């Protein structure tokens, strides 16, 4: 099948063929998850940053990602009620809304996006990478599910480097805690060659993912690397890394992107092909999911396109060269976890955003600061100032939340964006006048 633009459901939303394919993959995965009891499959809950999908598959476990469930609840306008349910049960209004959405969903019967009940996990793989909240989140889930919980600690890359001590620590945890417990839970013996096979497949899909993300360097950019990027990262950050499905998907997507580059086209938005590319932005921070389309529309209506984003690196910084390496199976898993965006020090994050602005020839940096995500948000005002200083490009700051609809003020966000676009225009005019 060749890529094309197709009409999808709901009827007024346009999607790329790759988006339809991605949606089908995700739907199939949720069906696999919700039928786990019937099929006898066992379920491992884990997180996107530090997701060890290749290892999980070695034990025939099905990967369940509570963050992705919360995102799905946000997109379906269900997270608000879930969050309030959790708050009524005693969870603070101050803390991460992914956690509260997940817990609220659990309290309301744990119904997945396909309308069926999600199974209780057989094991919680607490891969503690880049976010302190993960640690508490799985303690909360453990209290509920009372299932085995495996802790894998990823040291923080505070000094901008990976030390041998960090790698040894992680490999030891994998060898002595993670793998033996997964063997016990699943009843499947660990086969390192099976892991190598999956890792080789991961690397293939990662090559194509990088090609796709870096296509944002074209003018016009054939992709939106933030809103569209959410679709693109779904399979590889979720349950498909290491599979043939992922290889096929990213090859398909790459062809689609190549067609757009050849035709000089921008990305497809929910309202149709993107019009003239007026503003090229780099975005830092996660998006808001409760008003995803409305949020995106504020950009494409103004001709603004995101050419690179940090959020599409939370599940791996492949564009900085990392590939899963089947020749060093455990070490490569450790390096993967260590390198994810939120496990990188603030100076590393600043360097990365400056690189993006320069390499993607962006007009500036936009920070979407998320109220309930300290891992991303703490320090973003300094990031903004430093990136502005180094690149000479204007930066702007908006505030929303991941999945809490109470913290999305459309008028406020729109006003700020419009002012920001004016600021870019002024900067261009003054640059033109100076030349």
């Amino acid at each position, binding site marked *: 099948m060749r890529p094309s633009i197709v009409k999808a459901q709901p009827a007024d939303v346009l999607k790329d063929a790759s988006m339809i394919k991605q949606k089908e993959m995700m739907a199939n995965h949720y069906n696999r998850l919700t039928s786990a009891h019937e099929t006898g499959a066992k379920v491992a809950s884990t997180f996107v940053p530090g997701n060890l999908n290749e290892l999980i598959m070695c034990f025939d476990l099905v990967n369940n990602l509570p963050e992705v469930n919360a995102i799905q609840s946000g997109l379906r306008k269900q997270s608000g009620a879930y969050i309030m349910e959790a708050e009524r*049960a005693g969870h603070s209004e*101050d803390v991460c809304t992914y956690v509260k959405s997940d817990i609220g969903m659990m309290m309301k019967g744990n119904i997945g996006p396909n309308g069926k009940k999600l199974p209780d996990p057989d094991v919680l793989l607490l891969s503690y990478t880049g976010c302190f909240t993960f640690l508490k989140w799985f*303690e909360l889930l453990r209290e509920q599910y009372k299932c085995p919980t495996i802790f894998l*600690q990823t040291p923080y890359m*505070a000094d901008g480097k990976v030390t041998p001590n960090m790698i040894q620590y992680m490999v*030891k945890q994998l060898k002595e805690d993670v793998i033996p417990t997964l063997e016990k839970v699943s009843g499947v013996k660990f086969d390192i060659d099976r892991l190598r096979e999956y890792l080789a497949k991961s690397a293939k899909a990662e090559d194509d993912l990088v090609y796709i993300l870096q296509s944002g360097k074209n003018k016009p950019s054939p992709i939106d690397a933030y809103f569209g990027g959410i679709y693109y990262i779904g399979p590889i950050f979720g349950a498909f890394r290491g599979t043939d499905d992922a290889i096929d998907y990213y090859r398909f997507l790459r062809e689609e992107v190549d067609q757009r580059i050849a035709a000089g086209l921008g990305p497809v938005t929910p309202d149709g092909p993107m019009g003239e590319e007026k503003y090229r932005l780099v975005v830092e921070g996660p998006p808001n999911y409760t008003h995803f389309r409305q949020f995106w529309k504020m950009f494409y209506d103004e001709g603004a396109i995101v050419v690179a984003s940090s959020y599409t690196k939370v599940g791996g910084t492949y564009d900085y060269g990392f590939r899963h390496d089947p020749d060093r199976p455990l070490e490569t898993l450790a390096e993967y976890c260590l390198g994810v965006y939120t496990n990188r020090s603030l100076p590393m994050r600043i360097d990365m955003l400056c690189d993006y602005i320069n390499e993607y020839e962006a007009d500036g940096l936009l920070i979407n600061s998320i109220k309930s995500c300290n891992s991303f948000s703490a*320090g973003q005002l300094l990031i903004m100032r430093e990136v502005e200083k180094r690149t000479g490009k204007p930066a702007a700051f908006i505030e929303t939340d991941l999945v809490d609809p109470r913290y999305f003020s459309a008028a406020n966000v729109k006003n700020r964006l419009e002012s920001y676009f004016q600021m870019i225009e002024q900067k261009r005019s003054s640059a033109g006048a100076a030349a």
Partner: protein
Amino acid sequence: MTQPTTSEIIARCEELYQDLNFTAARVWKEAKPGRKVIGYLPVYVPRELIHAAGMLPLGIMGGGDNLEVIHGDAYYQSYICRIPRSTIELGVSGRLDFVDGMLFPSICDVIRNLSGMWKMLFPEVYAKYFDVPQTYKDEIGGTFYIGEMREFLSDLEKIAGRKITDEQINTSIRVYNENRRLVNELYALRAAVPWQAPASEAYLVIRAGLLLPVEEHSRLLRQYIDAAKVEERPIKDNCKVVVTGMFCEQPPLNLIKSLELSGCYVVDDDFMLVSRWLIGDVPESGDPVYNLSQAFLHRSMSTAAKYEPNLEEKGQFLVRAVRDTGAEGVIFASTSFCDPALLDRPMLQNVLKAADIPFIAFKYAENSGQMQPIREQAGTFVDSIKLWSVA
């Protein structure tokens, strides 16, 4: 030498507490050429290593309620706690210009990211994110922690310009063992006779230990304990409570006083955990880094910033604190926007419910000024315990 009274000791401690220029630490540094000061944030760093390097470990617990935050607010959104912004204020206003290094312990994402901010803002100052293991097997977490401590020691050696020997570290361990014994003695005294050593006084005495050389602080502790024991003070019909959640951003002193005024005897707490993080003595001979790692892994306090691998053990530290001190209830006092404390709170409350221990909860910031709601809430809590508790 005349034994000072409690009020004299407290006046001295309060002066240290109020001094946002850290004069005592500056004086210590200036007294001898080559002296260095290493600042650290909550919750825990092995101060023994800094001491062994001949340096002064200086606890930076934010700016409290007396610091006007002007620059710090420009670095943080409104939904982030106050300690990082007041710490930045201390830095950019020059109040920490004498500090030769800063440690940012692994406690939460905000303090973690602050370590990077510090590197950006003060590139000439040594800044380290001090990572600790969250897994507690000797050969896994222990080996990692030993590696981290050795790396830190190597950094200290570069700053000090000399080697740090095992003997020097063992000497420092001895000094800190003594200090911890005295801190624990003060806590035991307060739990047994809380009217003799009120929480607001104990707080100031312990807090002084973050600012003074440890040897001086141990003398001060001894003096306070001895003076508090013999002073005649009235016994009030207060309710014994354990306070939890204050392990990072510190409460304003007025908040502790308000709890006391509303009828609480605070008999245990998690203020400034660094002072008693390690439980019991650390061996004073042998490989000191190994001994410190063993103490951290197997004999250290529980707090929200630490992973509890055993579901059955989750929150039991709080139940034990209640039982050991004879407390009648628990007050969850958490900093606004504190992820570790606020995410942990529902789990701890479930444990208390199961143990039939009453509790209340409120939030605060280090600069909270309005104490009336807290007084009313705590007062009502105390009344309800007094009126309806089975005991």
